[in-house]
């Protein structure tokens, strides 16, 4: 089963080198675990990131082969560069992982980190995925 303490530790380990917050949440934006300066900040990031992810998923449902999950063109990562930071979102199993970096972080590094953490969490989250449906 999942050990919440371990998930928090994994997320805390990612908050180095310009990453100021890391969150694991469900597709509705409810937090499972987080590492951030305050829980209020984490809740805001999680809610908006989940909403953005679902906006892009819904927009892809056009029936064409472009951005179509059935053809292997499914959404893997969303990166949002803002004036004072960058947000990256990925989907390990049925959950969402969100990393927030400050404006000094390189996009490639943020992408590599979100991919690595997502891959790390994929397998344990897959085991509990059937219970979430």
């Amino acid at each position, binding site marked *: 089963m999942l050990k919440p303490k371990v998930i928090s530790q994994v997320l805390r380990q990612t908050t180095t080198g310009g990453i100021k917050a890391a969150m694991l949440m469900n597709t509705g934006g409810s937090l499972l675990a987080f590492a951030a300066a305050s829980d209020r*900040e984490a809740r*805001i*990031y999680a809610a*908006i990131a989940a*909403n*953005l992810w679902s*906006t*892009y998923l*819904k*927009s*892809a449902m*056009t029936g*064409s*082969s*472009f*951005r179509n999950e059935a*053809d*292997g*063109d*499914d*959404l*893997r*990562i*969303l*990166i*949002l*560069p*803002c*004036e*004072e*930071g*960058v*947000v990256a979102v990925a989907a390990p199993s049925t959950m969402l992982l969100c990393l*927030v970096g400050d404006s000094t972080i390189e*996009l*490639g590094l943020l*992408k590599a980190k979100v991919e690595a953490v997502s891959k790390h969490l994929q397998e344990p989250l897959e085991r509990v995925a059937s219970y979430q449906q």
Partner: protein
Amino acid sequence: MSAKESFQQLVQPYFEKGLKSALLTDREGVVILEYVSPEAPAGVTDPSLSTAFSIANNQASKMGLKRNKSIIGIYGLHQVIQIDCYPLIISLVADATANTGLFLDFGDELQKMVEPMVAALQDKH
């Protein structure tokens, strides 16, 4: 040289580097300038791409990180880079494995090119 021609001239060299299409649209998805590669997947000019960005850009600007400048969506086979030049949107579709940084720089170049158009539209608003 017309805006369409200079847009095509700017975009064309990037087709060799994995770019599939470049679009300049308004926030409802109406195409203003476009240049689509023959190899581009069907649906790249779909308005849903621009409207999704329009909503997402607005929401992302409320995260406490100031204004959202662009959104990069990486899919299994493609990547979509969308840049905000309010009230217009630049959308670039490329191979998933292509150099994202290169297209972000190219997006900045396109942004400079459409600046007069953006200024004229902002005057109107």
